[in-house]
């Protein structure tokens, strides 16, 4: 765990005021963008402000590595995205290497439960992932672009360029198809959680 240097701390101090509104917008956007996994992604009713605050804490504590080429804005956006993934799934982010001790319990889920298990930051079970994947496939019905997108991701592609190459779609078509699909998934999740 590498703590920040004096130069890095001074860079943070100098740049935060100019990008703070941008970061607040990103925190809200990221919170919304993970609802397709868990409607209420934040444990203990946390909100966008908590995601931003937690992201900064991770950076300051050295739990998030700061590659020299990364701007303060990109560093904090990346940290919030990883953190939101952890909140939504209860899993650490393999790429980011963040140590998240808030979620270490694997809970089971049966078919009658919503995909989300609880808002406590617990880990999604394998059943939950199966259910999410199946739901993804179901929601492509009647949407050929979304269907092609999901097939490409099932085949192992994960970047817009790779998906575009595999499907013959443009990156704009992919982005739109993904938005339509994840919006439907989010609505489903929120509805199910409201019912349960």
């Amino acid at each position: 765990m590498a703590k920040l240097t004096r130069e890095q701390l001074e860079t943070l101090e100098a740049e935060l005021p100019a990008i703070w509104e941008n970061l607040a917008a990103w925190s809200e956007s990221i919170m919304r963008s993970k609802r397709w996994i868990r409607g209420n992604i934040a444990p203990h009713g946390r909100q966008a402000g908590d995601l931003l605050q937690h992201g900064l804490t991770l950076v300051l504590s050295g739990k998030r590595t700061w590659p020299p080429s990364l701007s303060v804005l990109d560093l904090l956006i990346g940290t919030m995205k990883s953190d939101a993934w952890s909140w939504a799934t209860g899993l650490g982010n393999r790429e980011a290497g963040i140590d998240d001790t808030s979620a270490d319990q694997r809970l089971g889920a049966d078919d009658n439960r919503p995909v989300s298990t609880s808002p406590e930051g617990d880990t999604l079970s394998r059943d939950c992932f199966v259910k999410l994947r199946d739901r993804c496939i179901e929601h492509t019905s009647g949407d050929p672009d979304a269907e092609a997108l999901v097939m490409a991701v099932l085949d192992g592609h994960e970047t817009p360029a790779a998906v575009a190459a595999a499907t013959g779609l443009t990156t704009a078509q992919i982005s739109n198809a993904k938005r339509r699909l994840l919006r439907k998934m989010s609505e489903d999740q929120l509805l199910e959680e409201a019912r349960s």
Partner: protein
Amino acid sequence: MKNSKHPPSEEEGFIRRMNALDDGESLPPEEVRSLARQSGIDLAKSLAVALSQVQEAKKDLLKEQLDNARRERALAAEQLNAPRRKRSKAENLAVISHLTAMRPAGASAHAFHRNFETATDDDIASLAAELESLAGEEKK
């Protein structure tokens, strides 16, 4: 929990890839103000908190650096103040001569070239002790 102990299942891998695809999206600049407002974040207040956290981290770092410097200085002082072996002036000169000869050319103590044999016994003993201390440091 540090990451997952098990490799991700096929389904988890799929969800991770969908997530990665989603994470690649950028935020249109025209949406920034509106989303920031909808976030419910009090920008001025939260920025003040964030900056005070950075200030705190700077203070902690400075304190850590000062503590380290103090520890190193105390260690060095301890080595310098260690009781010196009582030696005669001739013995001290021999020690200085021996240790100076071991050092690379040009790294000898300048004082040694200035008729150092005429210095006081205490100065000679002190130089011998310092050279011994340096030799000990180099061996570490």
